[in-house]
């Protein structure tokens, strides 16, 4: 039974359509991220859920009840803003206590709860400090504690980590996830950082131009993107434009080379498609070791990018630039300038249709 539901939510600002009828359905205790580039509508959607804006169409339901007309102060949701949301005239403790004071809880109960929450976010010692005396990361922790203090039905986070340092970001996102799991609170998270979304969410919804391109688990999004946009946005992908030659054997032609990929089976001849290959699946060999062979693309190594345990190689192919991720140890034998052969695996690749119409592969975006 869905706990939080967005149904056909629409919002336009004059001629600009920020949200074009989106549908989302969340279970109780689920962590869902709205992921997408700036302007895709994810923050608009979040603000509609919070009540700071009214949709032009559609509805928002919690536990079956329609919230669309309820004012934000009555929705019982906790929100963490991107920055600057702590009240500057109050200490951390007073900030966290605020929601409880409004609800007229007894002072002793309030103090206790505030103490617990500050401990939970790791700031038990900093309660008496003012926001301007706290670092960005600490401020966001206080903001989180403040939102949780009122025991909200839903927790909403609007790019809470964007304004923080890289290291703090990684640390804090893990903590947010830990706390969320511990408290079992339904959470809607907005971000433009795909790594962030994939690492902490139960489900991810990729948005673009006011629409949801795809909703799925992080691994689904990564290995089985449903549209070219999602494939482009999530992780890195090699995208090979090709034409189907034979739908039975799965043969396609890319840049004058014939490739056989399982994913092309069942396609019609002449169909224009996109073959998607993950960098870690592309095998490289110096091209002197056996010319040709099946499913091979030729090219020359153009750059090495050191990423730690893995090194990313860029290969200049005939039509496109290819990206291959290899264990760093192997990379010395493939220096820049070397002609190489890249082997496209028969299985493990994805295929997307480039013609008009909904995305292929039986996975409809926007529904679950």
């Amino acid at each position, binding site marked *: 039974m869905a706990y939080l539901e967005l149904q056909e939510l629409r919002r336009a600002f004059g001629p600009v359509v920020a949200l074009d009828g989106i549908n989302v359905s969340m279970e109780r205790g689920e962590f869902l991220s709205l992921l997408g580039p700036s302007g895709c509508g994810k923050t608009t959607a979040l*603000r509609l859920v919070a009540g*700071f*804006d009214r949709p032009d169409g559609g509805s928002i339901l919690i536990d079956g009840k329609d919230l669309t007309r309820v004012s*934000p102060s009555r929705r019982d949701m906790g929100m963490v803003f991107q920055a600057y949301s702590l009240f500057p005239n109050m200490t951390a403790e007073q900030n966290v206590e605020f929601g409880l004071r409004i609800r007229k809880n007894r002072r002793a109960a309030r103090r206790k709860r505030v103490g617990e929450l500050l401990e939970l976010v790791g700031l038990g010692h900093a309660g008496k400090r003012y926001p301007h005396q706290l670092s960005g990361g600490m401020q966001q922790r206080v903001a989180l504690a403040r939102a949780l203090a009122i025991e909200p039905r839903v927790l909403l986070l609007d790019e809470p980590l964007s304004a923080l340092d890289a290291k703090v970001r990684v640390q804090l996102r893990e903590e947010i996830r830990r706390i969320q799991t511990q408290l079992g609170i339904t959470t809607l998270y907005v971000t433009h950082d795909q790594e962030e979304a994939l690492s902490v969410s139960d489900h991810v919804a990729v948005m673009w131009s006011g629409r949801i391109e795809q909703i799925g688990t992080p691994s689904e999004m990564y290995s089985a993107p449903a549209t070219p946009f999602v494939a482009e946005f999530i992780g890195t992908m090699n995208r090979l434009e090709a034409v189907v030659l034979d739908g039975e054997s799965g043969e396609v032609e890319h840049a004058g080379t014939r490739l056989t990929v399982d994913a092309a089976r069942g396609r019609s001849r002449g169909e224009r498609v996109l073959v998607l290959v993950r960098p870690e699946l592309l095998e490289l060999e110096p091209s002197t070791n056996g010319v040709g062979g099946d499913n091979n693309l030729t090219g020359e190594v153009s750059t090495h990018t050191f990423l730690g345990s893995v090194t990313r190689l860029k290969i200049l192919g005939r039509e496109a630039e290819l990206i291959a991720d290899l264990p760093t140890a192997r990379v010395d034998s493939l220096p820049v300038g070397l002609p190489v052969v890249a082997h496209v695996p028969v299985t493990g690749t994805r295929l997307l249709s480039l013609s008009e119409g909904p995305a292929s592969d039986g996975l409809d975006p926007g529904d679950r």
Partner: protein
Amino acid sequence: MRRRWIAPSAVVWLLVAAAFFLIPLIALLLFSLKSIQTGKCCSGAAYSYVIDDPQFLDTIRLSFQLSLETIAISLLLFVPTVYWVHLKLPRFRPVLGFIALVPFVVPPIVLVVGLLDLYKGAPEWFYAKPYGFLAAAYVILAFPYMFFALDAGFRSIDVHTLTEASQSLGASWLTTLVRVILPNIRVAALGGSFLTLAIVMGEFTMASLSAFRTFPTYIQLVNESQPYAAAALSLLSFLIVWVAMLALLFVGRGRPRPAQLAATR
């Protein structure tokens, strides 16, 4: 709450404000249109009296010249000063801010009394024409507004980065000031200038006490003999200055920064 429409309470307050501020101006207008014979509406006699009176133009011209002089001296004095303070002496800023408040809060009366005392030994020409003594006094009077306007302007730009970039490219201090800094605080400087204009065009106390014939003293003179004409004059003075202020919007372009204070009483 990103409201789409104006809040009802805002409407109420704005209507109240509009009424309070506009009614006296309308009263002035109606008064100025009264004819001397019937004592009722409507006659342009007051306006023609004003416009025909040579003193009208003379005093406006004098006041206007005084404003320009005050503005020029103020900018020349204060722009480099505020720039320097922002760049090299940030700790001095609050002190300067405090000093800036003194002329604002000190009554013109006291100021005149004090200044006349101070300038006792000054040469004849300083006293004779208003350009000397009165301009000096007006620069002091306008200092707070100039300062706060310029201060806000300097705060909104990154003075250090701009200066360092300019100098690393080989510019001298003067070049930096004139070609890099000045254009970036143009709006603030304009704001301060227009407020100075408003101040000088409306300043009565010091001008009358030092017996110079500026526009506001002329208005008072007319007031004593021709009330309807005085009403016309008052209205004209308001409109002239408001138009000058609105000119700021077009000349300055971009968002004007009206973080300035106001003047006379």
